[in-house]
């Protein structure tokens, strides 16, 4: 048995309908909303601002802080509001995914707070969050080297697909879970990887194919991010 047709009829390398908009939180220094199919992430950037308490300041470079949060009503069964082990981890990996973009060495003693909230979740929320946050950072006018784009690559049975949905994440063959989820974030120019996670079962020989799919998908997402930024200005 194999995954020859995607559940929602998309081509294997086709992304869900994607839209992006800049400037959705007037109070913030930068903000953006990024929607990919039913997954919607909203990101707001506050800063760079002086980091208080002072002892947390880094005299050599600025600090980027990410707060990822899923709203309690963004999923089927309500999730308890507030910080969870999962959200702490996602905040951390998102920090690592975004930090290489920003010229933090130009901003000593400061902090940039990035707040990501998931309004509606249908898989790929950390990737949508990263995509929104990259645009929000650009909107805030933070000195940046390049943009970053993220996508969840999946392996269904032994087929590699781009931008998996929740339904695909739960895909089974012969009553066994047969989906592998691989979120990847890639810098737009250097094509270096800033986020990579995996859970499931991926043969090592397929890593190259996954990377290639991620590169293609990230290119498409990058175009959407750039278009939204241009439309705004």
């Amino acid at each position, binding site marked *: 048995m194999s995954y020859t047709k995607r559940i929602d009829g998309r081509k294997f390398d086709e992304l869900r309908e994607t839209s992006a908009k800049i400037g959705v939180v007037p109070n913030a220094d930068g903000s953006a909303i990024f929607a990919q199919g039913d997954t919607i992430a909203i990101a707001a950037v506050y800063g760079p601002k002086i980091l208080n308490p002072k002892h947390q300041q880094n005299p050599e470079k600025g600090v980027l802080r990410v707060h990822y949060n899923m709203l309690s009503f963004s999923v089927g069964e309500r999730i308890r509001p507030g910080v969870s082990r999962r959200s*702490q981890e996602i905040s951390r*990996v998102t920090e690592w995914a975004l930090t290489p973009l920003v010229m933090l060495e130009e901003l000593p003693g400061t902090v940039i707070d990035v707040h990501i909230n998931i309004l509606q979740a249908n898989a790929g929320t950390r990737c949508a969050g990263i995509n929104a946050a990259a645009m929000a950072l650009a909107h805030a006018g933070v000195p940046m080297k390049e943009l970053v784009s993220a996508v969840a690559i999946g392996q269904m049975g032994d087929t590699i697909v781009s931008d998996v949905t929740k339904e695909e994440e739960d895909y089974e063959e012969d009553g066994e879970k047969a989906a592998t989820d691989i979120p990847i974030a890639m810098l737009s120019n250097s094509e270096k*990887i800033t986020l990579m996670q995996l859970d499931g*079962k991926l043969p090592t020989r397929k*890593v190259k194919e996954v990377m290639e799919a991620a590169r293609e998908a990230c290119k498409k997402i990058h175009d959407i991010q750039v278009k939204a930024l241009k439309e705004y200005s």
Partner: protein
Amino acid sequence: MTYKVTKKNVVKAVVAGKRFDGRGLFDHRDIEVRFGVSNKAEGSVSVKIGKTEVVCGIKMGVAEPYTDHENEGTMMTSLELLPLSSPNFEYGQPTIESVETARIIDRGIRESGFIDFKKLCIKEGEKVWSIFIDIATINDDGNLIDAGSLAALLALRTARKPVYDAEKDKIEYGEFTDEKLPLNVDKMPVTMTFFKIDDSLLVDPTRDEEDACEGRLTVEISKPGKEEIINAMQKGGEAVLSAEDIEKIMTEATKIFKKLNSLVESEAEKFEKEGKKKSKK
């Protein structure tokens, strides 16, 4: 805390392909395993990698299953970075470092199918066994992810179920059956973390080396059949990875998998033999 000057020297050495203790970049320090660190635990072990030491204890309980997996047992992995093990660790809420490390270790075990959760079901929808994998640091000299994971595997491999009185719905803690945990030994995942310094990669860093690193990629691999399967991956740190880095990591991971996998097998076998000798007396 690692001094800046030490970090600089570490970077200098690693870029030249060298390490302070003379190891190659993909060599591990000596690994030492000791079973039975707590006779109250269903399984327990101490793992030393060089000067790093962690202990892991398996405890089991009976609980209600999750509503979306009514016929499966549950598992929880936690890691305590004990202040006893390093001047860098403090009391208080679990830090993000401990949460992230525990979640990485958890993911490989869960995704690989190493534990047969269906066999941990007592009564569908009502009662299942839950496995607690609790790891604690005794001395931190780097590479805690891999050390913790190794300890978790060995503790699971050697754990015995406690006696459960179904009528009273009570576990007789301290009384053990001969029954092992339902494990698919052929699906056992091995955790390997690759660290990046400048453009070089290395494994099993000491604390000084780890503090000088800009990033890491953890790869958890099992080999249920002919080929290696990645069950979990996680990039950590601010470093970026190139396609070449990933290719190199995959090549080295396959070699390290073999080495660590056979280490676990031989230690588990040793435990079985010695355990049998004891029970004969």
